[in-house]
């Protein structure tokens, strides 16, 4: 009986073109628009690029040259360009370089405006000058350790590049796509609502026919849940593949965990919809859909899926909301995957999501099964 229902639920869900269209289109379209809108902005404003700088050598400085070699290049901090003073001034005026470093007995920096690139150059030089004095001291006290000191300098002190503590991708851009996946999971609640409407005699003619059949409501609900989950989860996976292979978004390498999270998120969205759909009051598809949209949006807003800063404020004031808000749990899980090498926080979130999903599904079943309605 379960598989009979599962088979037909899958069949009519797959043939429900309008609902299927929107389920598929939402994450794909939104991620495409997001990529088109923010991808370029990110490329031009947020993504770090090496800063071109003119180098005017008045007196050779071997240690500084070694440091420049270490921090230069496409993946480095700066792109040094050896120039004459005159050329460097012209290049600075033309905007080809952001500053001029004069290598002399005292190393100095010349800039003609303030900005992020100029700050990076200034910070780099300050840091070098502090470190140079340490190396000079080592040279005086223990000259044999100079190379070791420079190596130390190379390996850590002057490494300005971002360090992560996991194998994930902590780019800000990827967070937008995590938000889309999380919202798409939450919006599975609409499918959940519709599926329960078709099970209740007071809400649909199909509900009447299925209520008078000798089939347990638990069987009908679970078959409906599983079939919708198969579809929703497939959609999420396809959206993930689209983001990775078409849009070129780097989600790190914890794909198994991401897929588990999508499965859990889809289950949560569906069970939330089924719970709302099963509520005896208010009745009516329109009102229930309205509640579904409102709840999803409130959860999304509280979890920073629509605007930044709210989730952090809640974490500092009423953290329990972040522990029970499914949207916050999903975004936090994505964050945990990209920020930590261990799965402790991710696992905790997954367990909470499973508990909430089970509670909502149990609630929906208990409200619908063996129900006699006051009016039809």
């Amino acid at each position, binding site marked *: *009986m379960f598989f*009979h*229902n599962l088979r*037909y639920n899958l*069949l*009519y*869900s797959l*043939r*429900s073109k309008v609902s299927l269209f929107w389920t598929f289109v939402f994450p794909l379209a939104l991620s495409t628009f997001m990529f088109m809108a923010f991808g370029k902005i990110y490329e031009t404003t947020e993504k770090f690029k090496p800063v071109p700088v003119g180098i005017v050598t008045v007196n050779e400085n071997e240690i500084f040259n070694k440091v420049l070699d270490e921090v230069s290049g496409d993946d480095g901090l700066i792109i040094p360009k050896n120039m004459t003073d005159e050329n460097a001034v012209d290049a600075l005026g033309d905007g080809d370089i952001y500053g001029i470093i004069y290598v002399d007995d005292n190393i100095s920096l010349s800039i003609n405006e303030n900005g992020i690139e100029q700050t990076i150059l200034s910070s780099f030089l300050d840091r070098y000058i502090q470190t140079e004095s340490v190396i000079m001291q080592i040279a005086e006290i223990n000259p044999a350790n100079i190379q070791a000191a420079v190596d130390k300098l190379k390996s850590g002190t002057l490494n300005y590049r971002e360090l992560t503590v996991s194998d994930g991708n902590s780019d800000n851009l990827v967070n937008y796509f995590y938000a889309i996946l999380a919202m798409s999971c939450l919006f599975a609640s609409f499918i959940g609502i519709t599926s329960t409407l078709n099970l209740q*005699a007071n809400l*649909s*003619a*199909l509900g*009447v*026919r*299925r*209520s*008078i*059949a*000798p*089939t*347990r409501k638990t069987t009908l609900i679970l078959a409906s849940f599983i079939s919708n989950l198969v579809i929703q989860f497939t959609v999420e996976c396809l959206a993930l593949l689209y983001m990775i292979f078409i849009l070129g978004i780097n989600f790190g390498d914890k794909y198994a965990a991401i897929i588990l999270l999508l499965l859990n998120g889809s289950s949560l969205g569906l069970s939330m919809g089924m719970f709302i759909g099963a509520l005896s009051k208010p009745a009516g598809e329109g009102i229930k859909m309205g509640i579904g949209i409102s709840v999803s949006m409130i959860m999304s807003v509280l979890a920073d899926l629509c605007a930044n800063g709210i989730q952090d404020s809640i974490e500092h004031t009423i953290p329990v909301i972040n522990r029970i808000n499914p949207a916050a749990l999903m975004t936090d899980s994505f964050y945990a995957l990209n920020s930590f090498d261990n799965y402790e926080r991710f696992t905790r979130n997954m367990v909470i999501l499973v508990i909430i999903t089970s509670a909502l599904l149990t609630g929906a079943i208990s409200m619908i*099964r*063996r*129900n*006699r*309605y*006051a*009016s*039809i």
Partner: protein
Amino acid sequence: MSAIIEIKNLVKRYNELIALDHFNLEVGEGEIFGLLGPNGSGKTTTINCILSLLSYDKGDIKVFGLKMTPSSYELKRQIGVVMQDVAVFDELTVYENIDYFCGLYITDKELKKQYVKEAIEFVGLDEFSNFRPKKLSGGLLRRLNIACGIAHKPKLIFFDEPTVAVDPQSRNNILKGIEQLNRDGATIIYTSHYMEEVEQLCSRILIMDKGRSIASGTKEELKNMIKNTEKISVEVPNLSSQAINDIKLLPHAYDLDYSENVLKVSFSGGSHNLVHILDYMKSNDYTLGRVYSELPTLNDVFLEITGTELRDNA
């Protein structure tokens, strides 16, 4: 004849409105039992209470001698329902819809396959088994609705206004189908506000109004309950007052109306009432137009008991 459905003192309220007022019903095995009443009289509410879809305030309902509850799965297995609203999946074909709903009752795959095939043949949808419901006409859609309700060969079938908004040909097919199901052994509960259908189909009839049973019995028993036995209408121009008074005095005549050149006389008993009227007209040289003699209908029964027309309420 054993009772398949027994309802005693059923009371159902919707807030202040009493939908069923100490309603009683007994349906025997093998009957085609008609529930007749205007819209809002409580017919569908009665069915929903029997099927345990609706809660009720008071009373007892037994089906096949057992109390019906939402988890009475063995009882439900023996019941089929064809509701007024078509309840099928638009995304499934005719065959798939019937197979799905039949599969909720029958788990044996071979048996189910056979039943689905028989149901499709029964409602005459053989040529349309791969069609989606949206491609079917209103009449064919009603037939699909019926097939979904009866494919599992239930012993007790409820038909709740199955012919609403159906063309005459499809209506005829549906009524013939119901008679066939009854001949095959099913007990039928048929609700309608179309008195002609109920008269044609049902072996026993219960007339409902405002949640109460106002009369029940065979159609002959119901008609015998009222005074009217024949109503005669005659088109006759310029009928004099003297003639009207004379006709009023004819044997068994108890009511007369003359307007727009049409004389209508109601009789209570008598077997030659039309002859008496025609004789009178002939002997007084009246020129006659069309003449009708109507036997009482269930509408007359309803009219006489409630004071309102069944059709007016429908």
